[in-house]
């Protein structure tokens, strides 16, 4: 009986702890999705919310699905699209930053296996202040 009670309390407690960890406190990552134009590259998009009073920054992204995982930015200058790696992306306090097509994104180079539409991939986002946040991203088709 005692053991059962323990489990009953333990389950929700674990869930609360887990969700607290996933949120990383004041920084939250939501609406993560990915797409893969070819068999060996992919891109991941999401929105980072910073409810805190201090600026934070995404400084690294890790994942087992690709040999190289990097933060990139697409820019449009004079009609030319360019893509280049960035060291970190600041998430202003009390604000949110959308990683989306045509802007910041996470590049996956050298996919271990091709990503299929409907797959879910796991990534770990590393923030300067909030630490590591685990993220699941669904692989979406290009034309839905």
């Amino acid at each position, binding site marked *: 009986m005692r053991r059962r009670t323990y489990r009953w309390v333990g389950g929700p407690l674990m869930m609360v702890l887990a969700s607290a960890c996933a949120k990383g406190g004041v920084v939250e990552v939501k609406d993560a999705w990915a797409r893969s*134009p*070819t068999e060996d590259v992919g891109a991941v998009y999401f929105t980072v919310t910073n409810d805190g009073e201090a600026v934070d920054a995404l400084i690294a992204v890790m994942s087992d699905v690709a040999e190289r995982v990097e933060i990139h*930015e697409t820019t449009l200058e*004079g009609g*030319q699209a360019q*893509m280049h790696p960035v060291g970190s992306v600041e998430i202003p306090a009390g604000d949110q930053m959308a990683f989306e097509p*045509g802007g910041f994104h996470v590049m996956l180079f050298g996919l271990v296996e091709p990503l299929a539409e409907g797959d879910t991939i796991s990534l770990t986002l590393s923030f300067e202040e909030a630490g590591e946040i685990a993220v699941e991203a669904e692989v979406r088709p*290009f034309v839905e």
Partner: protein
Amino acid sequence: MSQRAGLLGAGLVLSLVLTGCFGVGHDGRSPSVEAHGPQGSVEYVTPGQGGYSGLVLDRPVPFADFTLTDQHGETFPVADRTRGASLTLLSFGYTHCPDICPGTMAQLAIVLRGLPPEVSGEVKVIFVSVDPERDTPGVLREWIAHFDEGFAALSGSREEIDAVQGALGLPLAEREDLGGGQYAMNHWAAVLAFTPDGFAHVSFPFGMTVEQLRHDIEKLVREGWKG
């Protein structure tokens, strides 16, 4: 849209107006199109010239005929294959491109599916790869099938691709080394919309909505270009 994004958008409009970037191209030849800020989080700003959501080019781009190889490995003479079409949409990119290129092609596919057949049947979509090293016809066949198998996906030698861009007055795509054998291709990112008068008067920069594209494509097909 958040207030911040709104402010950002307003700032972009202002900076576009101040820099007058709808005017002269950087090398004096390229049709200057800079309708989008450095970040995708900024919504596309509608110039609204001539009733178009896309950019009406100060200097229309004259159509230049060229022949490349399509995704089936067949010779593709562009003028022949687009003869009789009311609208030819020409786009440049590469299959390893994460978002601009597939985003553009996906939008065009969605727009054409949503238009009545008498309109969509008048539109030819041609994608030209600027990455001859990786984009073979086989790779392009698989890639273009994500969007619409009826689109043409063309490849050729570096010299041929450069000649096409040069003939259209576009800045040449450039390879940017990302280390470890990976590279990106910096390339022209706006769709050129050619009408039967032999010019692209309107171009569609990345960031337009599907609704805006649908409007402009239907208008160009039904009315042609009325300058």
